[in-house]
């Protein structure tokens, strides 16, 4: 059993604006992360901090085609790495289709559960990306809390 998921969102902005809102930490921190040690550049490893998650997450960029594709490796499986592939497809009328797929899950109950949590997370991220570039708002603000994340996901501050 191959555990994998893909989420997608159509954004009413051109590809370049959408891509920059992901690789540029000044923008990514406007709707998803709290901070990053740097931009997403091919071959680099940056540390993401989240507004409520009690963890610091190293993220390595293993592939990057500007305005087209981004592949990241991070500890999506908590004790093991997963791969996140984001693609950006230009559509008519200066719109963009963003797809995010995450693979590398263990083919068992634990893998399914972690993948479900990240499917929820990437759906929130991609919808917040849309809200950020289309409306200039931060949908992550007041969406989660450390207390509820600990209760719902069993994560503890390290």
């Amino acid at each position, binding site marked *: *059993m*191959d*555990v994998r*998921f*893909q*989420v*997608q*969102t*159509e*954004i*009413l902005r051109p590809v370049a604006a959408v891509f920059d809102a992901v690789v540029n930490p000044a923008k990514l921190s406007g709707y998803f992360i709290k901070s990053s040690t740097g931009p997403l550049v091919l071959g680099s490893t940056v540390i993401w901090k989240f507004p409520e998650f009690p963890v610091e997450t190293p993220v390595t960029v293993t592939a990057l085609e500007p305005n087209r594709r981004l592949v990241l490796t991070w500890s999506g499986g908590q004790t093991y790495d997963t791969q996140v592939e984001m693609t950006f497809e230009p559509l008519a009328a200066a*719109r963009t289709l963003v797809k995010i797929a995450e693979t590398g899950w263990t083919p068992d*109950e634990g893998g*399914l559960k972690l*993948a*479900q949590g990240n*499917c*929820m997370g990437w*759906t*929130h991220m*991609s*919808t*917040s990306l*849309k*809200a950020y570039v*289309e*409306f200039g*708002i931060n*949908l992550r603000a*007041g*969406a*989660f*809390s450390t*207390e*509820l994340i600990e209760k*719902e996901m069993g994560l503890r501050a390290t």
Partner: protein
Amino acid sequence: MDLETKVWLLVQKPPEQVFEAVANPRQMSRYFISAGSATMTTGAQLAWTWADKNLSLPVRVGAVEPGRRIEFTWAPAGRETWVRMTFEPAAQGATQVTVIAGDWPSDEAGMVPYFEQTQGWMHMLCCLKAYLEYGIDLRAGKAA
């Protein structure tokens, strides 16, 4: 083990207001559906319509506790599915909205609706939050 999904989100509005934005089809049509034929009350039978997808789905409402809980069944991908939504008070006057839905077999075939419905309901909750907190329709230009 059967698969069931659970998604949740905080909306910075009180439970009564968040509940109303789901139960009342005129409000729900501002961020999720094109139209709903009736309010979600205990035992109600209604239909949700998405004009852009040329889709109309029957929704059979089970138990409803105003301001707290809505349960219903529907068949979003041709398979009967149950859905439980809860609206719980959270810190600073906010509401934790949770959607639990299922179930699907724990195999390759079951994984497809498991992840599709995870995405679909999380997207709905994001649109609900954007509607109540910012008054915008995030579904315009659609997702998923």
